[in-house]
């Protein structure tokens, strides 16, 4: 018997038992749908985070006190501006080193008040981070050296405080102190939940006085190219370790962040897909069950086919193809619904979803595999039926 023939027979059998076939497929449909959607969401989240990190700028090394790692307790910083000067000497190019000190403060203009992240930094910030201006100017070395009360606002802060009014040259009160607005950043979105459009930048010296502590939170170093990153990273950490032998310093790069976060998110996606895969497996058990029922129900038919000359493998093939067809059709429907669902989620919710070819190929392959795996036992049973016994069955 030809495969085309077996296919025709199987389709006919599925058509005859339309409702049962549909219900059996439902298990596979739901499983595949879940795999496709969850992988799409996982991948979408990963892409979004990677885009955020890449959006920071390129070839950045962040130096912070203590151990950086998931679950590590934040360390009280001992670093101050003399350490920044030290790192500048170590790196060689002072314009490639900048600093950050952070504090949450309220910012007020007239009756408008917002809570923003105050970031003290210096004139080198724009050399390292990708932070284009919408209006005005960046802070200068003079602003930093003379502790000027000037500020560059994140786009969201500017919008909330000034509305349609041009903020440049106007006053804003930060933590009770009046600052002059010298610039407004372009909107850049958020990184790791840090809403960068809600930041207000002031000279680091001014920020330290405002906060009342001479500390800084971290140092950022810009490498001149991807090849330089690793050596520079080691050089800076080694220099700081030498300066403070009883303390630890860490330097992380974008690549490492991307790697770590990518791994975590991939793992998460994998776990989600595995959970969805279990439902696919349950769908497969359903297929097996229905095929066994079908073989029992059609025992007489099997006996007849054998009497008319069907070989064991003809009958086996017929039932196996039926099972594989069930799961494959279910899989295809699941893929279509999954892709549709992912697109819908993408369009209607803030959850990012990215459809990947490998997840579709995998879902399809697994559907076919499930059909083969769970169809073999019933099909073998059918193939081995004794024709005389089968013909007699009621």
């Amino acid at each position, binding site marked *: 018997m030809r495969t085309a023939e077996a296919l025709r027979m199987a389709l006919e059998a599925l058509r005859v038992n339309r409702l049962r076939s549909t219900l059996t497929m439902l298990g596979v449909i739901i499983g595949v749908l879940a795999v496709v959607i969850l992988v799409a969401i996982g991948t979408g989240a990963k892409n979004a985070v990677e885009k955020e990190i890449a959006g920071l700028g390129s070839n950045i090394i962040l130096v912070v006190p203590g151990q950086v790692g998931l679950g590590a307790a934040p360390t009280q910083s001992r670093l101050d501006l003399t350490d920044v000067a030290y790192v500048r000497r170590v790196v060689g190019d002072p314009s490639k080193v900048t600093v950050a000190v952070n504090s949450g403060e309220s910012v007020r203009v007239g009756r408008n008040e917002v809570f923003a992240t105050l970031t003290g930094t210096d004139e080198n910030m724009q050399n390292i981070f990708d932070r284009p201006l919408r209006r005005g100017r960046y802070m200068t070395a003079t602003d930093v050296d003379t502790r000027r009360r000037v500020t560059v606002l994140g786009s969201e802060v500017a919008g909330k405080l000034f509305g349609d009014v041009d903020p440049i040259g106007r006053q804003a009160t930060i933590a009770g102190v009046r600052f002059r607005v010298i610039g407004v950043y372009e909107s850049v979105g958020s990184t790791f939940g840090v809403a960068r459009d809600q930041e207000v930048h002031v000279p680091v010296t001014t920020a330290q006085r405002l906060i009342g502590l001479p500390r800084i939170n971290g140092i950022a170093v810009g490498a001149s190219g991807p090849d330089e990153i690793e050596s520079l990273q080691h050089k800076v950490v080694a220099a700081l370790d030498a300066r403070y032998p009883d303390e630890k310093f860490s330097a992380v790069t974008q690549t490492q962040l991307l790697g770590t976060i990518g791994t975590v998110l991939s793992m998460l996606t994998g776990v989600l897909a595995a959970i969805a895969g279990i439902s696919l497996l349950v769908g497969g058990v359903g297929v097996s069950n229905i095929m066994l029922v079908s073989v029992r129900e059609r025992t007489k038919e099997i006996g007849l086919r054998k*009497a*008319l*000359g069907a070989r*064991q493998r003809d009958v086996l093939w017929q039932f196996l193809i039926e099972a594989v067809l069930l799961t494959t059709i279910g899989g295809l429907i699941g893929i279509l619904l999954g892709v549709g669902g992912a697109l819908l989620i993408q369009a209607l919710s803030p959850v990012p979803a990215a459809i990947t070819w490998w997840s579709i190929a995998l879902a399809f392959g697994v559907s076919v595999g499930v059909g083969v795996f769970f169809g073999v036992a019933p099909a073998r049973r059918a193939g081995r039926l004794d*024709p005389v016994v089968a*013909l007699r069955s009621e």
Partner: protein
Amino acid sequence: MTTQPPMTSPTAFEAIGLTRSYDLEGVSVDALRGVDLRIEQGEFVALLGPSGSGKSTLMHLLGCLDRPTSGILRVGGVDVATLDDTRLAELRNQTIGFVFQSFHLLARTPALDNVALPLVYRGVTRSERRARAEAALKAVGLGHRMGHRPSQMSGGEQQRVAIARALVGDPQVVLADEPTGNLDTRNGEEVMNLLERLNADSGVAVVLVTHEPDVAARARRQIHVRDGLIELDSRSRTAPAGETTEGGAG
């Protein structure tokens, strides 16, 4: 005019000391206890005997649906013991046509496809299958019922579809286990006419089981089975083994 089809052996079936026992929870039931039998090409044989005597068991063995417990069975000269299940299925497909008491048609499949079914397992193309099934259905007078499903047909029509299915593969033998058992006299008559014509026109050997004396009377040879043994064989009584005088005569 002789209508003997070309064959390697003129003997359709040859059984020597054929037995078949069933094991029922440790107790052995002997359905056949040593059957010796020769059925030549083109014969028309009726098997008679009380219920449980072993007629169906013998038919299953002749039809290669089952294997003997002991003894030798040759079908068309081939010892079935030398064939594996696959070859047995092929032998069944090519040399034997079955007609059952309860028709055994696929209920939701049109008559034409029911008839064509044996050809599917022979790898015949779809168009040729159609053509041959059509011809077979016309031969049993059902040219106008080809698209009907068995559930839309009378019992007599269904059995004629089953006969068409038995003929479609040009078998050497048609085995019919109580083919008229579920039919009224008129439909039974018609089925018998068909089988007779088939036997006379194409030289196909027909072996049928029946409980009805007037059906059995239409066969040229009657074999009586009792307790798993052949009790009486009309041919060995009236004409010694060998030529059947009227066989194949038009």
